[in-house]
């Protein structure tokens, strides 16, 4: 056992967790600021300079709210719902390469927790398990609105997983690997996958919105029809966990989109800078986070621009548009790969 290695991994895991939580915290702030901007308002500006302490105030408020427990048959599952949602949301970050490797004292330290050779399948697996938190929480609430929200969430996630998997498949065919590290390293400079797979990107983006339960696909918590959807009965920090998990999911989805389609930590003209490996790695991380922030902004932009879908429209879009287009995309990718070989 190499203790250096273990300590390094623990530090990396802690850092990634902290960053995920911080990003999720400030996403709530930026969500409200952007919403205000799109609606020609000011947004939160009372707590601290520019309202920057607002997330802290929100968190404290949630913590001090009354812990409400509905008259449910299954208290254990009621508590486990938000826990699972949070746990699964944080799991995905393990396989994302946040940067190339640092070189400290002649040793290589990769900025990735686990470089497994099926990284992208791992992400698909974790997102497919992610629905349990919402389903169990909604069911255990013993409330028909919650149950409807949970059922909507389950069928929506299963439907959009298929199209998402098919969109990823085209990328995998192109890069000949399931490892995220390998997929990113093939997109050096500006040789990004988006130039080859624009259709795949569109499908993946739409599915990511649906998988995160973000507007225009936020039907599981659709407040005009279902009060609060699956989290109607939740209060205090348990509600906070559900909301927080959504923002973490958004952060991770943005990271996956930037890694798969926008070159991850690669940026144009990176070879002509002539910097040392460590500086390149640090700049790469910064660039990666810039890309992630852009997609986070895109998520919010879409939420405050588009109206919500109706449930039958959502299902029709998933099954009769996205899946056939994704299969067609795979077919074309295969033909082009054949011709090029």
């Amino acid at each position: 056992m190499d203790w250096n290695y273990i300590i390094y991994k623990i530090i990396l895991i802690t850092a990634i967790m902290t960053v995920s939580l911080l990003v999720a915290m400030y996403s709530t702030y930026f969500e409200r600021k952007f919403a205000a901007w799109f609606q020609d308002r000011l947004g939160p500006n009372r707590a601290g300079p520019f309202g920057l302490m607002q997330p802290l105030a929100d968190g404290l408020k949630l913590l001090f709210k009354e812990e409400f427990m509905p008259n449910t048959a299954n208290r254990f599952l009621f508590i486990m719902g938000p826990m699972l949602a949070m746990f699964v949301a944080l799991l995905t970050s393990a396989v994302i390469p946040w940067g190339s490797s640092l070189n400290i004292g002649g040793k290589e330290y990769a900025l990735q927790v686990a470089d497994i050779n099926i990284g992208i399948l791992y992400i698909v697996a974790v997102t497919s398990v992610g629905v349990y938190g919402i389903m169990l929480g909604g069911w255990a609430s013993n409330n028909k609105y919650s149950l409807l929200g949970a059922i909507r969430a389950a069928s929506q996630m299963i439907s959009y997983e298929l199209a998402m998997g098919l969109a990823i498949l085209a990328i995998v065919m192109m890069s000949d690997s399931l490892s995220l590290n390998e997929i990113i390293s093939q997109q050096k400079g500006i040789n990004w996958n988006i130039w080859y797979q624009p259709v795949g990107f569109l499908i993946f983006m739409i599915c990511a919105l649906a998988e995160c339960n973000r507007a225009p696909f936020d039907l599981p918590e659709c407040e005009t029809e279902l009060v609060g959807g699956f989290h109607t009965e939740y209060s205090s920090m348990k509600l906070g966990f559900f909301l927080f998990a959504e923002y973490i999911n958004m952060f991770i989805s943005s990271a996956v989109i930037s890694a798969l389609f926008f070159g991850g930590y690669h940026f144009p003209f990176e070879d002509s800078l002539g910097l040392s490996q460590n500086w390149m790695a640090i700049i790469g991380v910064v660039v990666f986070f810039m890309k992630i922030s852009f997609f986070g902004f895109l998520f919010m932009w879409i939420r405050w621009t588009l109206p919500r879908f109706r449930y039958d429209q959502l299902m029709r879009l998933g099954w009769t548009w996205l899946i056939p287009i994704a299969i067609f995309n795979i077919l074309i990718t295969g033909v082009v790969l054949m011709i090029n070989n």
Partner: protein
Amino acid sequence: MFSTILFYVLSVILVFSSLMVVFTKKPVNSVLFLIVSFFAISGHYILLNAQFLAVVNIIVYAGAIMVLFLFTIMLLNLNKETEPKKPVLIKIIAVITGCLLAITLIGSLKGIDNAPVQNFSDNSIGLIKNLGKSLFTDFVVPFELTSVLFLASIVGTLMIGKKE
């Protein structure tokens, strides 16, 4: 050493949760224990260095099929009260058939010690590249036949679903 401990931990979880699937009274708990047992099986796959199988097991069984199970149970709202009462005769028949199955299983497992143990020197057999190669070379006919079977079942499901 470490993997031996992991093996025993996973096995205990697997056996316990599989038993609980049968013994627990509430249908939702059965489904949840089944999900736990799928995760334990995936853990075993990882110990055998078959990462692809492990992840696909989670995607297909834990992520899709069990969600549908849970979905159905939630929609039907199965409770202990709504469970139909079974007559004593059926219970006796069930016990007898269960014992018969147990005897058959014991009989078929009796000679297992004599069977030669396949020992793969190459432990990368479960990695996706080798798996894909063997699927498309050595096992291409069964693989394609299974695909046709799947297609037939999809078409069949659609036919039944469209009837109404």
